[in-house]
């Protein structure tokens, strides 16, 4: 697709929780400015893959590279790697004891050693950009789910990560709040942010992703441009999955 070295490259990654094999040999390369959507049923390994890339889970076999450097070697400093990635969780995971601004500042100040004075303008600017101006001093529980998830996106993006990893960022939201969060992701895409997003929103995958990967039982069994994967999938598993989504009114 794009020339040059991939930002994130995954080679032959496997991961099991006890007897349960969640990832069974994943290969995937994501290039600069590319957005890759991971789709597939619950339990197909999308979230686990994202957590493995951010080194929150240790992989069993294979390798993951960030900008050409292997990051899954035991000798690699996981903290330094995580500072170069941004992960957004399905359940937001905002810090309830910190206000909105401090949620965004924590990574900049503690993780990246910036001074508060240096970090605060950046944090405020980002919050404003995601429509959260005036909410800086509020506690997260005063915000709607959509607002909380936008804070979480600002928090993960504040450190200018090499790639954003978005794990089902709209699945916990009421339907009427999905749009505002998708708008924030669209915004990142327009800026050319490299991202990998696990999603159940097919219309969104179609719009934002350059490439869609269908995960089934721990493998990417089909991938390609969204128009093709979502309109004319070749594999029967993909067809079945999309038909089920359509019946549930989610596609």
């Amino acid at each position: 697709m794009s020339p040059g070295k991939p930002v994130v490259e995954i080679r032959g990654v496997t991961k099991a929780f006890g007897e349960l094999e969640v990832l069974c040999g994943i290969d995937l390369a994501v290039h600069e400015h590319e957005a890759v959507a991971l789709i597939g049923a619950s339990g197909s390994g999308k979230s686990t893959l994202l957590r493995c890339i951010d080194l929150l889970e240790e992989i069993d076999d294979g390798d993951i590279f960030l900008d050409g450097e292997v990051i899954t070697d035991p000798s690699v400093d996981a903290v330094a790697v995580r500072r170069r990635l941004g992960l957004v969780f399905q359940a937001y995971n905002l810090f309830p004891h910190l206000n909105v601004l401090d949620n965004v500042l924590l990574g900049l100040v503690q993780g990246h050693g910036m001074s508060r004075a240096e970090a605060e303008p950046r944090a405020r600017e980002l919050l404003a950009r995601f429509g959260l101006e005036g909410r800086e001093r509020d506690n997260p529980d005063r915000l709607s789910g959509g607002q909380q998830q936008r804070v979480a996106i600002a928090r993960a993006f504040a450190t200018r990560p090499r790639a954003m990893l978005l794990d089902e960022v709209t699945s916990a939201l009421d339907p009427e709040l999905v749009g505002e969060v998708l708008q924030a992701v669209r915004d990142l895409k327009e800026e050319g942010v490299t991202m990998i997003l696990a999603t159940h929103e097919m219309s969104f995958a179609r719009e934002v992703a350059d490439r869609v990967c269908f995960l089934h039982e721990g493998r990417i069994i089909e991938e390609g441009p969204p128009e093709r994967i979502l309109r004319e999938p070749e594999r029967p598993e993909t067809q079945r999955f999309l038909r089920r989504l359509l019946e549930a009114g989610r596609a």
Partner: protein
Amino acid sequence: MADAVPSEGAARDRRAERAAARRARSLRGGAIAAFSTLVFLGAAAWLIFTSPGWPVVRDSFFDAQVFEETFPGIAESFWLDIRVFLVVEVAVLIIGLVVALLRTVRAPALFPLKLLATIYTDVFRGIPTILLVYLIGFGVPALALGETEDGSRPLDWLPTEPVVLGGIALALSYGAYVAEVYRAGLNSVHRGQRDAALALGLTEAQALRHVIVPQAVRRVGPPLLNDFIALQKDVALLAVIGVTGTAFREAQIETANLFDYTPLLGAALMYLLVTIPCARLLDRWERGRARS
């Protein structure tokens, strides 16, 4: 008038009706509560005051003159209780948090300390506080005063003051309880919080310090206050190793001198003066949290 604007008038009437019904209900509730309390207290008073032992109890526990004479001294000595409590409490909070953190961390290098912390909580929580006060109150001075053959005392730097030793015993005993309270608080912070902190590039230690511990401490406030109340009362145990000057000890001495138990009641009153406000504070705190 109600006919002219039927809907509005009717609505206003319904509202007034409901408010009146609510007022009547709450009045009736108050009356029933007051009545049943009176009946209960009356029955209890009748049972006590008509019992054959009452005259003896009245004379030896509720002697107004003895109370008047002894209460000022008891109240004054309660100041020592307060000071011991405050110093021990600070030590307990520190011991508890350190032990709880040691029991929670996963770093292999800290394993010996983790093991030690586990043994500490098991042992000190398992021994009655009064026994600990005895063991430390009498055991440590014996160590400190022990002489070698040439007459030197290698451990003479150990404290021998009963009030210090008693305080140490209380701190060790309550430290073990409070460590478990803290640990429960640390474990109650959702795993996603740690994940989020790490994902932002924080180290494990930073995640603990900035994300997990602050949330845990907020959650364990009420159970901690409960342990404070217990500790506050247990300062009285220091009497068993000869600590003089606490409210309980003072009352004990007066009781022995006057052959009258009224001073003990005076001491009880002093404890209640501190513990009841603490308990109310705890209630309010928990109500506030339930609301938020």
